[in-house]
């Protein structure tokens, strides 16, 4: 056995140039894929820094020849009429109120995240730590919620929100995600189950009740996981398109960025659309997620890998 493996190892060493070339090629492919992941963002930024007229004159060079901040100015609502006309090359162009939509997105995502994470943590505590009749059955029932595609509950929920009189309003936007999602409860329960019980037992002996334990023992220990869940919830809420589209199809005072940007696209003419403006809006809509990514990217990678191992 040892002689054969030595012989084989010798053969392997002979092929090492080939193996090294293989590794080089693999690195090349990997870096190319990394480049393809980033390039569209760069390209959108490059387009946003270019006037429409210059785009149509063959704006496919990698660097913008005559960069301008005009598109960013007008999408942020800071440009004069004359400047807008210069940037778009036409008298009337569709507009996109970025600041208002950004405000709405922040309001919606923040309310959803705070409510969902806190109330789901309460439920997760009950499922992980308390004993009551029918606990496992109820938890299983919650989990079946994961199997139902969102479009199935979309229509009944829309009717319910309409009956509440919450169409075109923030309460209507956040209601379905404010008190829980099955995923959030499931996610936190997993972590709560793993927390050592000895701390709680000590607290019980000191006379603490469950609400105190939840606040003073569990929440502080589980803070990292709650932050991870909060980031995931914030991203999901920020990216949501279908629900806000049906709840507030026309009212731009409550529409989040996704819906406002979609409406901006639909207003574009079939010929010579305002690509510079669209890409500026796209870059600005991507920006908050980019910032979140820079702050929490590593945490997100870890949490996804965790779910991959499970």
């Amino acid at each position: 056995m040892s002689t054969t493996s030595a012989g084989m190892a010798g053969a392997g060493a002979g092929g090492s140039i080939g193996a090294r070339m293989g590794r080089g090629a693999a690195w090349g492919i990997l870096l190319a894929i990394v480049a393809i992941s980033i390039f569209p963002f760069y390209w959108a930024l490059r387009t946003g820094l270019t006037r429409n007229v210059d785009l149509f004159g063959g704006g496919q060079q990698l660097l913008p020849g005559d960069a301008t901040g005009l598109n960013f100015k007008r999408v942020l609502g800071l440009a004069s009429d004359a400047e807008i006309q210069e940037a778009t090359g036409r008298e009337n162009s569709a507009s996109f109120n970025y600041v208002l939509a950004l405000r709405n997105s922040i309001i919606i995502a923040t309310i959803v995240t705070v409510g969902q994470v806190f109330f789901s943590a309460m439920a997760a505590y009950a499922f992980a730590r308390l004993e009551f009749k029918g606990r496992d059955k109820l938890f299983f029932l919650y989990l079946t919620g994961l199997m139902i595609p969102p479009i199935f509950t979309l229509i009944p929920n829309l009717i319910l929100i309409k009956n509440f009189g919450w169409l075109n309003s923030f309460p209507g936007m956040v209601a379905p995600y404010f008190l829980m999602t099955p995923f959030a409860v499931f996610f936190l329960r997993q972590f709560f189950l793993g927390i050592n019980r000895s701390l709680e037992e000590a607290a019980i002996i000191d006379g603490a009740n469950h609400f105190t334990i939840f606040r003073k023992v569990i929440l502080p220990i589980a803070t990292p996981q709650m932050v991870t869940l909060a980031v995931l919830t914030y991203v999901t809420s920020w990216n949501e398109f279908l629900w806000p589209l049906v709840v507030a199809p026309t009212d731009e005072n409550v529409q989040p960025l996704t819906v406002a940007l979609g409406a901006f696209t639909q207003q574009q003419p079939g010929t010579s659309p305002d690509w510079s403006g669209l890409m500026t809006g796209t870059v600005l809509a991507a920006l908050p997620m980019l910032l979140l990514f820079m702050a929490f990217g590593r945490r997100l990678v870890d949490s996804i890998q965790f779910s991959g191992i499970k």
Partner: protein
Amino acid sequence: MTAATTTKQASNKTNLSGGWPVAFWFLLPSLIGFTLFFFVPTLRGFYLSFTDWNLLGNEGEFIGLENYRTLAGDDNFYDSMLTTLWYVVLNIGSQTILAIMIAVMMDRLTKSTTIRSILLLPWLMPNVVVALLWLWMLDGNFGVVNAFIDWLPLGGLFGDGPFRFFQDVGKVIPAIAAINTWKFTGYTALLIFAGLQTIPKSVYEAGAMDGATELQMFRNITLPLMRPVLALVLVLTIVGSFQVFDIVQVATGGFGGQPGGPVNASRVIYLYIFQNAINFNDLGYAAAISVVLVIILLGVTALQMRLLRAGESDLA
């Protein structure tokens, strides 16, 4: 329960248990949310499919199986189901192969968190942003992809450009599948990469000792051992892929186009449900299509779970 202080001598288990009087308060918010927005709507969704509900104040008459009878003879339904299937095949096929490649390369080459983070970036973006980025990249007049294809020495291998991906009946679904592949490949690769970490390195070392090439190790070690995680990933991604909507709505609905166009070539099942509910105001019929979709998705999941079990016992 308030008895905590008086039962110091009793077992800790009773103290910790709480029972319904305590659990009730912890569960109350989530129970309200679950009941109002998940449980009752699910039941109501089934009920709606037997009515002719609309949003204009019609409370909906019970019409029995009428919606399902219409559905059985609705060519548009079959058409959009086939469109969806074609999309799922293209999207899952390309995305899974690429993700496996990336995961294996990362596993064998680098543990860099930076690379993994960058690959995850497209997944974080709103679908609307993704749709717009690629709508511009793939534009028929000034899109950089067309410029790139022009530049490649292909000699018109794929026909003459420029390609108008979103105006071409045959290209719109492949284009949308490619866009979503761009968005989800990094995420899928991370899930698979995590699964690969459970394979002991000693197996590869033994393989290298025996003079196996990277390709042989991939075929004989990696592929069999990652089958369980692959099955799990496929359940997640296929069910998600069936539900494509946002990108179709935005990418085909802009610039005077019709969502689902051209000529309904990209009218996937989610869009068909959406159109029936919102545009045609036929909530009952939309609910009936949703019921069928749920049944299909449950079937897909159950089938894959069986395959998953068949793939167990790989890593003893």
